[in-house]
């Protein structure tokens, strides 16, 4: 049977400012097929699909449906051309039932009758093999049920071309199997299905053809039956590009942060971190690679005390045995408390308790370097709030992904943002802006932040400068562990290199750096070791100097065997 063309894209180009997201992309979709669109994060898959769904409008190029050129200006237009897209972030009203969400926004001359809608929804569900109660409220639903509602919403509107953006990212293996069954049934029904993904095994399992995008360009479209995972990976990641990031060999790397069997459930009750274990060494950059949303954010947040974990250990090591105590990372109060516990000895191995001594005398003794630690410091960071971690004297810096929503306060100026970490210093209730201001000036000078001055609200700075302020502040905190989530996302080349250099300098100073990144080329050149995670579980920890892009690419998409056993 000759296949019929449903949708054609011809020379589609879309740029956002100087960034070209799609460059003259051609794509064909046939009736009754499942087309996988494969590519790394940021390769322009979603942008391309958004243009079919009416979210964006192409700068150049044509879209043809059934051979006729069409103009799609809004999601409504897309519906008129029987195109429906299921976004990664569901657009549903939580308080409504499934059926109410499905019928929302549709126009019909018929009298509104929820019972009839319920019946229609149930009918669609039955036809394609969904399991869904039309009267169930969205807030009671699991992620997969919500996704089902989104798909039915699109089908209810009569869509013949369905686009699913990373539909499996949030599903369990059984749910994925069920979804694929549904997709196959829809295919048999003559619908065209486009599924955006970067999981190779799924591509191989469900798709008829695969279109590969890389850096905004269409690389190739191949028949799934005639290709292999290895070939797809190669097309997806491309040849390794030399970035010339300076990387020094780690000197006496010692364990700093040890995470053992960490498990975390998120607010929706989904198991987002599964038995994660790794060690971050001082003087080393540990890269974390993985598809976006594999648990990177949750991992860093649970280490820094922002998310309560279910089980596991997070331990901070400070090799202090027989080394002098200093006030650098500890206050007088903390030093005295430790002394009382018998943590210190003097040069003659006698206990030091500071009992009955004045602060001045204690300070002098400590500063002479004659007070030594008896043991290495081992601190449990689990179930500690960020403030408690700080009070323990553990200098843990964290550059979060959400810079202005979490790391910085947008409406405050650079000086006040410097204070976020340190404003509690000083005895009186008043703020001391002198030091933060000097710090702000130093960061502006050192990192070449382009800003009118220290009193400019950070919201007005460009992305790269915002990031320099944030990273600068976290480094100024003299960390022992520095965690950075996507620190170069959205930054230009020069700013990116500034950040790489900063991280490298921290590593050379003996800091344990954890770098969560998405660009494999960068991870390969910047990091010493790379931990790959997928679906909240570690799929491998490799040596960045000897591994290849293909190996990491495979690990990123590798399904965790244990997960299947759970099923």
């Amino acid at each position, binding site marked *: 049977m000759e296949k019929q063309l449903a949708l054609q894209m011809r020379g589609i180009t879309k740029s*956002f*400012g100087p960034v070209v997201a799609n460059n003259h992309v051609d794509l064909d979709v046939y009736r009754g097929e499942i087309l996988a669109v494969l590519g790394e994060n940021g390769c322009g898959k979603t942008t391309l699909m958004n243009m079919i769904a009416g979210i964006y*409008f192409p700068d150049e190029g044509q879209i043809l449906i059934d051979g*006729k*050129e*069409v*103009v799609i*200006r809004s999601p409504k*237009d897309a519906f*008129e051309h029987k195109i429906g897209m299921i976004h990664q972030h569901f657009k549903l009203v939580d308080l409504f039932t499934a059926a109410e969400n499905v019928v929302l926004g549709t126009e019909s001359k018929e009298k509104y009758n929820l019972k009839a809608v319920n019946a229609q929804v149930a009918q669609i569900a039955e036809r394609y093999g969904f399991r869904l109660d039309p009267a169930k409220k969205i807030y009671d639903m699991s992620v997969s049920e919500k996704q089902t509602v989104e798909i039915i919403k699109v089908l209810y509107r009569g869509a013949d071309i369905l686009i699913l953006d990373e539909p499996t990212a949030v599903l369990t293996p059984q749910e994925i199997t069920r979804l694929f069954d549904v997709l196959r049934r829809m295919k048999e029904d003559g619908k065209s299905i486009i599924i955006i993904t970067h999981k190779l095994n799924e591509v191989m399992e469900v798709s008829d053809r695969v279109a590969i995008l890389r850096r905004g360009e269409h690389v190739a479209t191949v028949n799934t039956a005639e290709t292999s995972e290895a070939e797809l990976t190669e097309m997806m990641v491309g040849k390794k590009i030399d970035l010339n990031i300076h990387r020094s060999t780690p000197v006496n790397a010692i364990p700093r942060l040890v995470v053992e069997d960490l498990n975390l459930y998120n607010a929706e009750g989904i198991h987002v971190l599964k038995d994660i274990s790794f060690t971050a060494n001082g003087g080393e950059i540990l890269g974390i690679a993985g598809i976006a949303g594999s648990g990177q954010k949750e991992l860093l947040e649970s280490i*820094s*005390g*922002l998310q309560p974990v279910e089980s596991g250990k997070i331990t901070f090591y400070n090799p202090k045995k027989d080394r002098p105590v200093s006030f650098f990372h500890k206050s007088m109060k903390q030093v005295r408390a430790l002394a009382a516990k018998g943590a210190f000895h003097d040069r003659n191995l006698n206990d030091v308790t500071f009992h009955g001594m004045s602060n001045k005398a204690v300070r002098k003794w400590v500063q002479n370097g004659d007070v030594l630690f008896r043991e290495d410091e081992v601190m449990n960071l689990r179930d500690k*709030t*960020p*403030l*408690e971690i*700080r009070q323990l004297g553990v200098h843990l810096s*964290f550059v*979060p992904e*959400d810079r202005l*929503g*979490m*790391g*910085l*306060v*947008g*409406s*405050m100026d650079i000086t*006040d943002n410097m*204070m*976020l*970490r340190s*404003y*509690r210093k000083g005895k009186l*209730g*008043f*703020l001391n802006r002198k030091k933060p201001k000097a710090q702000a000036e130093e960061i502006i000078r050192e990192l070449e932040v382009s800003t009118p001055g220290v009193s400019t609200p950070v*919201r*007005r700075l460009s992305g790269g400068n915002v990031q320099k302020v944030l990273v600068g502040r976290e480094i100024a905190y003299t960390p022992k562990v520095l965690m950075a989530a996507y620190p170069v996302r959205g930054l230009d080349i020069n700013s990116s290199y500034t950040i790489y250099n900063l991280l490298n300098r921290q590593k050379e100073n003996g800091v344990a750096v954890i770098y969560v990144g998405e660009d494999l080329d960068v991870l390969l050149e910047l990091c010493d070791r790379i931990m790959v995670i997928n679906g909240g579980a570690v799929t491998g920890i490799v040596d960045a100097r000897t591994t290849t892009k293909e190996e990491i690419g495979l690990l990123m998409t590798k399904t965790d065997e244990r997960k299947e056993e759970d099923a």
Partner: protein
Amino acid sequence: MSTVKKNEVREPLIHLSKRTSVNPVRAWAIRIAAIVLGLIVCGLVAFLLIEKLNAHPEKIGDFYTAFIKGSFSTSRKFWKFLKNIAILLCVSLALTPAFRMRFWNIGGEGQTLVGVLGAIAVDFYLGGKIPEWLLLILMFIAALLTGAVWGVIPALFRAKWGTNETLFTLMMNYVATFLVSYFLVIWVPSGSSSLGKLKYGKLPSIGNDYLLIILIVVALAVALYIYLNYTKHGYEINVVGESVRTAQYVGINEKKVIIRTMILSGALCGLAGYLIAAGLDQTVTTESAGGQGFTGIMVAWLGKFNPLAMILTAALIQLLNQGAAQISQDFDVSGAFPNVIVGIILFFIIGSEFFINYEIHFRGHHGLAEAGKEAVK
């Protein structure tokens, strides 16, 4: 079919985007223009409502000069003007810490009223029995305490269960009103309609009856400005108000900050109540707060929650109020007329904020609009 539609149709006629920076000169020009426009509309409304003006349109000059006359024509009026600003400012200052934290405390009316009630209760029971200075101190403590309690109750529920604070504080106003009526029934001997002025518990007069109150409120404005901008507490309030996630990230306990700040906010409302009770009225009625708890919200909002700028906005509102009161006297119209004037001017100022914060692009300026979109991304 839509196949024939041209691409240009896609661009809407008007495109809005949020300004990333605000030019202060431009902002003030817009605000002043809004007030001028508002005053013109006030004149038009006055023509409709005031027969005397309708019959003698030439008197429109008197209509506008009344705004000056109302506050500056005699020294008594001027002092009254300053006193009214002080009380209104005191209430709006009290609300400011809560608003900075994005806690919509619209219970200033009730918190002030219980402050008055607390002070008067002490005055009623102890007046004459203890030295005047001690009485004044005890009244002060009582007013601050009752105000703080009234403020912290909604905060506790908000911190613990996320109870909507706007609705809660609003309800607390009416509970306060009827609490006052309850005590009035108990205190006022049957046959008399009101409590009357109490003999004791009056703040000393320093040169002028109102001067002490004015000085206290000015000092409060400065102190609050310092508290909000130069102390750790003020800093925490700002962080919590801006982003709870950031607060958690740096280890600020946002619940503690909410409760602490509402104790302060309520106590300062209580202070306003104390100034009304001990400084002015020496009595309490259900109208003791006089709607200032609500007007105070608008003063604080207009002043962008900056204590020093709020001195100006409180003065503006009082100027309009007294001017319009003068008009209702001169032109023989209902005593409610000032509310109409204040309402109209407020509409214009509120509306003008849009033109300060948003940029309006018309079709054709593609480049700008697109650039705006990217900036958002």
